[in-house]
């Protein structure tokens, strides 16, 4: 990597035409620039390729020589995947079950915040009431509260309910079995709201006011305006927030560790972290398991990248 930094410093000095602002195309004809970007691109992809290649190599091959030997001496097997997906739990398998847990956790954890954020953002953008701006600023400010601040009390809220001075105000949730997913949905939904409302509000506030006014003059109710005027126009924003939230929930470890409880409800990330800890040397399983957890978000991401980027830019640059 040290060679990388040297060339980075040297690059703009070299024979590059004065185009760093990005207006002229010739730039990449400069060899240094291409070399630097190639080094970065390699560093950013080769580790993942290593895991992917290893996941389809036989166990004794993975353990005895480097994955790059695969290209000289290709030996292919799907046994690792079969083992991690359908093998018994004790032998670090059973990922298929965790995969389903991940799905069951993620889908509602995306839908609920999506709806609640859209409704709240609409109210903040297109209804008039006293203190509206303060409510918006309050929600905006909540974005800076780390979710760590909420974890301990929220867990005790689920487990013991609310009691004040010895009087039980709300009972414990007492959920077990599949119902335990509800607490995970609840936690993810709460934590998604500040950013979601902020993002969607940004989009909604930019819609032309005449459109909403005209609908009002025609006698449309707010719910009608929301459904048939505003909603269709903010589909791209909804999509970007949905992808954002999907990646966040699917990839989350902390919330799942705390709220999902035991192996029956834990998502892939929890199992993966466990495997990395207990079976750190069984690379044939770790690599296949890692790839099982990566493949869904990667597919979503690569196919919907455009929306994701749009959301990213709206959330960070405008704010």
């Amino acid at each position, binding site marked *: 990597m040290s060679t990388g930094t040297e060339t980075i410093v040297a690059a703009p*000095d070299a024979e590059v035409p004065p185009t760093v602002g*990005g207006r002229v195309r010739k730039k990449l004809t400069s060899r240094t620039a291409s070399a630097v970007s190639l080094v970065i691109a390699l560093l950013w992809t080769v580790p993942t390729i*290593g*895991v992917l290649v290893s996941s389809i190599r036989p166990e004794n091959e993975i353990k005895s020589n480097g994955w790059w030997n695969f290209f000289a001496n290709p030996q292919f097997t799907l046994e690792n995947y079969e083992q991690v997906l*359908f093998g018994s739990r004790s032998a670090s398998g059973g990922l298929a079950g965790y995969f389903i847990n991940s799905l*069951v956790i993620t889908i509602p954890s995306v839908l609920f915040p999506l709806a609640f954020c859209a409704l709240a953002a609409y109210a903040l953008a297109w209804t008039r009431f006293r203190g509206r701006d303060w409510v918006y600023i309050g929600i905006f400010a909540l974005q800076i509260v780390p979710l760590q*601040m909420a974890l*301990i009390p929220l867990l005790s809220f689920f487990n013991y309910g609310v009691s004040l001075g010895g009087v039980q105000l709300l009972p414990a949730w007492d959920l077990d079995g599949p119902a335990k997913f509800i607490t995970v949905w609840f936690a993810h939904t709460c934590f998604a709201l500040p950013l979601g409302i902020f993002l969607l509000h940004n989009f909604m506030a930019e819609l032309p006011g005449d459109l909403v006014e005209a609908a009002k003059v025609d006698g449309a109710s707010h719910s009608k305006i929301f459904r048939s005027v505003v909603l269709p126009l903010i589909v791209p924003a909804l999509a970007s927030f949905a992808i954002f939230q999907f990646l966040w929930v699917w990839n989350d470890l902390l919330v799942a560790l705390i709220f999902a409880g035991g192996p029956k409800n834990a998502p892939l990330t929890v199992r993966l972290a466990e495997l990395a800890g207990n079976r750190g040397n069984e*690379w044939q399983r770790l690599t296949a398991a890692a790839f099982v957890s990566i493949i869904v978000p990667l597919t979503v991401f690569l196919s919907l990248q455009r929306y994701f980027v749009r959301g990213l830019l709206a959330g960070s640059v405008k704010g």
Partner: protein
Amino acid sequence: MNFDFTAEAPKLMMLLYGVIAFAAVVGLLLLVLDVLPARKDRWIALGLLAPAGLLLLVGLIVPAIRTMVLAFMNADSSEFVGLENFGWMFTDKNSGMLPDFSSDPVQYGVLLSTLLWVLLVPTVSTAVGLVYAVMVDRARFESFAKSLVFMPMAISFVGAGIIWKFVYEYRQEGTEQIGLLNQFVVALGGTPQQWLLDGPWNTLFLIVVLVWIQAGFAMVVLSAAIKAIPADIVEAARIDGVTAWQMFWRVTIPSIRPALVVVLVTISIGTLKVFDIVRTMTGGQFGTSVVANEMYTYSFRADEKGKGAALAVLLFLFVIPIVIYQVRLMRRRRLEGAR
């Protein structure tokens, strides 16, 4: 094959209930709003804000206040202990929080390690993202090239942890290496290292993983900012005959400064809360732990709620100066714009 599909059915039913509940709640809300006349904005706003507001109150605001209280209480939250938890953090030599430069290898301690993360991850990822954005801008395969660096953003921290653990994998000297980094070292004639075990450098190897994830974010945002630089500014500079180097420092950087600040701030805040990478790769051992990892361990493994809450409050306190800095910058920019 001993995968029992029937065992999974209840979970899928739960998913179905969840989706039905979702449809019911949203449908009911819209129905109620339909009945209300459009004139009464106040009531409609209340109805629209109610679900989000309630959830925020129950799931975020009240718990956050409660955590601030817990931070001043003892391990099982039965009595107040004043500033004891914070005193433990900053003065107790055995807490693992403070650096110990006399030990061998040097122990950074949790607080200094976290600081190291927060300083290095934003700067290095932004630098890499910026350089890459500039280099591939308007190149032939630009969008493909960007996807490559952006891709790690879709990978979970846990997944990235495993990917890099594999890169750092160590085999004894003389046997064939299976980790890429050690293979590289051996090929250059060095001896293989236990990258994740040997302090104090192991923290740096963990930091690399987060840089790997965050550089894509920096690259995308900065690339968009670079493309938004007005063509006439670049053109004017070119007519003035500036070199590429001057162009970069005097035109590109000042033009994208707001985006740079946003990227740095966003990544800093994210880095403060880093947990998954440390948890997956070292479990916080070998002197690599950070505040968020300790927070989890004390609150949910060690049953030391007071210390855990105090660590959460510490994270919150760390975020505040970063945000104040950003707000002040934004306000100044807005004032300049108004003039």
